[in-house]
């Protein structure tokens, strides 16, 4: 019997091993803080900056729809910490070229700074931003859904670990500041992307659901390497109490685009190229 060369044996074995490993589940994490930290980074802090075109369709209970379209630019000051957002509106026509800018603060005692630029008046407006749980541009998404809810706002508990998800229950530390009593998040065990969120009201009745309906890998250059960032490209929120629904679709997604500090009055008054073209 002819013996296979040792190297071939090793290659075959390692491939088998790898394959077996791959089909298996990744290592199980039991620390809930690690899970929610990773999920927070995946949902809001991938790359050092990012860009996307967002199309929003709001459908009320009668089936009437309204559309919003905007370019969103983001830059992280620190992973899991402060961030800056720049939103340049394309539709509807009456808000075209309006700009909304946020300097988000991770410190829960510090309100975010928000600005609005109204092009018709050439007016830079500062907006008071104490309530983050108000509707974003009249949709079923709230400001906090778009820019992320601070992890320190909730107590987290890992209530289930199954083949696909970590299920985390979140109870607000300051219940008087929010309209829900708790919410559960289904976090994908492989990607750590939050795939579903269910919100319960004060009577423990489910009234609001956010689902990540489509996740795509986006190619990103990190130094010399090409990496793929799994990214939610379609997200839907359903408000069961009002019968209203909002779909958000992301196109032209890009990461690490080397955004300068465009989050200033200069670029409020005149958008950067990244927002316009």
């Amino acid at each position, binding site marked *: 019997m002819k013996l296979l060369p040792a190297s071939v044996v090793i290659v075959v074995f390692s491939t088998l091993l790898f394959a077996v490993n791959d089909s298996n589940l990744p290592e199980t994490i039991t620390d809930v803080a690690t899970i929610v930290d990773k999920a927070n980074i995946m949902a809001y802090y991938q790359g050092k900056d990012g860009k996307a075109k967002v199309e929003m369709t709001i459908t009320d209970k009668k089936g009437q729809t*309204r559309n919003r379209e905007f370019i969103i630019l983001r830059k992280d000051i620190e992973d899991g910490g402060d961030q800056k957002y720049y939103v340049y509106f394309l539709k509807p026509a009456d808000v075209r070229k309006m700009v909304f800018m946020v300097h988000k603060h991770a410190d829960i005692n510090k309100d975010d700074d928000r600005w609005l630029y109204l092009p018709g008046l050439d007016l*830079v407006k500062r*907006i*008071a*931003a*104490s309530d983050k749980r108000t509707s974003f*541009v009249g949709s079923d998404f709230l400001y906090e859904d778009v820019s992320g809810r601070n992890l320190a706002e909730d107590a987290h508990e890992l209530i289930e670990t199954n083949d696909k998800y970590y299920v985390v229950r979140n109870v607000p530390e300051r219940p008087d500041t929010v309209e829900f009593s708790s919410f559960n998040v289904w976090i994908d065990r492989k990607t750590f992307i939050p795939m579903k969120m269910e919100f319960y009201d004060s009577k423990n009745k489910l009234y609001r659901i956010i689902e990540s309906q489509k996740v795509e890998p986006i190619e990103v250059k990190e130094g010399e390497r090409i990496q793929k960032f799994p990214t939610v490209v379609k997200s839907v929120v359903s408000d069961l109490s009002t019968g209203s629904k909002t779909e958000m679709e992301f196109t032209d997604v890009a990461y690490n685009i080397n955004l300068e500090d465009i989050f200033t009055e*200069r670029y409020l008054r005149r958008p950067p190229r990244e927002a316009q073209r």
Partner: protein
Amino acid sequence: MIRYKWSIVVILVFVFTLPSVAQEDDASDLNSLFSNLDVHGFYEIRSGYRTRKDKYEKDMSVMEQRLQIDLSSYLDWADFKVKGDIIGDLVEEQVDFDLREAYMFTRPYDFMDLKVGRQTLTWGTGDLVFINDLFPKDWQSFFIGRDTEYLKAPSDAAKISLFSELGNLDIVYTPQFDADRFISGRRISYWNSNLGRLAGRDAIQHTDKPDRWLRDDEIAVRIYKNINNYEWALYAYRGYWKSPGGQNASATQAIFPDLNVYGASVRGNVGKGIGNLEFGYYESDDDQSGENGNINNSELRFLAGYSQEIGRDFTAGMQYYVEHMLDYSQHKNSSPSGLTHDRNRHLITVRLTKLLMNQNLRCSLFTYFSPSDKDAYLRPNINYKVTDNLAVEAGANIFFGDYPSTFFGQFRNNTNIYTALRYSF
């Protein structure tokens, strides 16, 4: 004289920067200008009536159709925009064209922005109260119930902005004085101090407006910096009172005397809301001593404001504003038609805005109230977005006053209600 020198400086800046940005002209530029063209605008019908009889004005306060066309395009090195309104005006019984914007914008260097042409300009921290913003206003449009956007009249100017770590600098040069679209009596009746009574279409104000190109110019400067999201700014202006600030010796024409303004402002988070402070010294340059009763006195102007979210989609804002005359005794002694002003004009404004029905319905009330003049001006407005393109609105301009000569009191008979429908595309 000084004005003349300023204009030379500004022209030199242009001569040196433009060639560096305007690279080789070629036919492909024209092609891309067309292929990048973006066309938008709106069509609007607006009608309003006076609720009180005004013997000097028509009953219709506003009755017009308006088509706005907004064209924008760009090349590698610049953005271009032209926006104009065609208005069929039944009050004036004429068709009018109002060119709102026509400008070129470019970023020739990392540290510089340049915007040249007809443009809308705004700075300062006040909400519908202006101290250091000396760009032209259209008070007539504001009072008859046009969209708030029309409070800002366009400037024909060049704006140079320079940016650095130390601070940012804006210089706005207007080669020919752009006055306010002020209350002349044509659409709004007013207190005429020469006649000693209210007047309107029977006594439309004639003005002697400075209009020499590059001589009767204006320059406005702002230095600003954001420090930990507190926005600090210093301002200076050299030009003219934007609405008539006096009259000639024979009292036949209203004039726009020289005006210099120096000021400062700050805006930022205060508690749960946004606070702002602004100050301005108005130097009435043609009457430094305050002895000429025909020309506005020098003034100090001060503003303090605060706004906060007081409920879901419900915001409230409040401002206190004062105008303080600096040479009051001289003014008092020299005033020809008796005393018409207090030394201090105090003004309080309150803004309430509530959004309802998924933010498609906006209810707002803006109130000006002067305890010293004993007058008030209320601006209630309801706007509903029927669809993404179609909006309907209704509102009113309500004036109160104990005296016929005070700032808002003189407009009592112009109280009006209006309604409008706008289709945006």
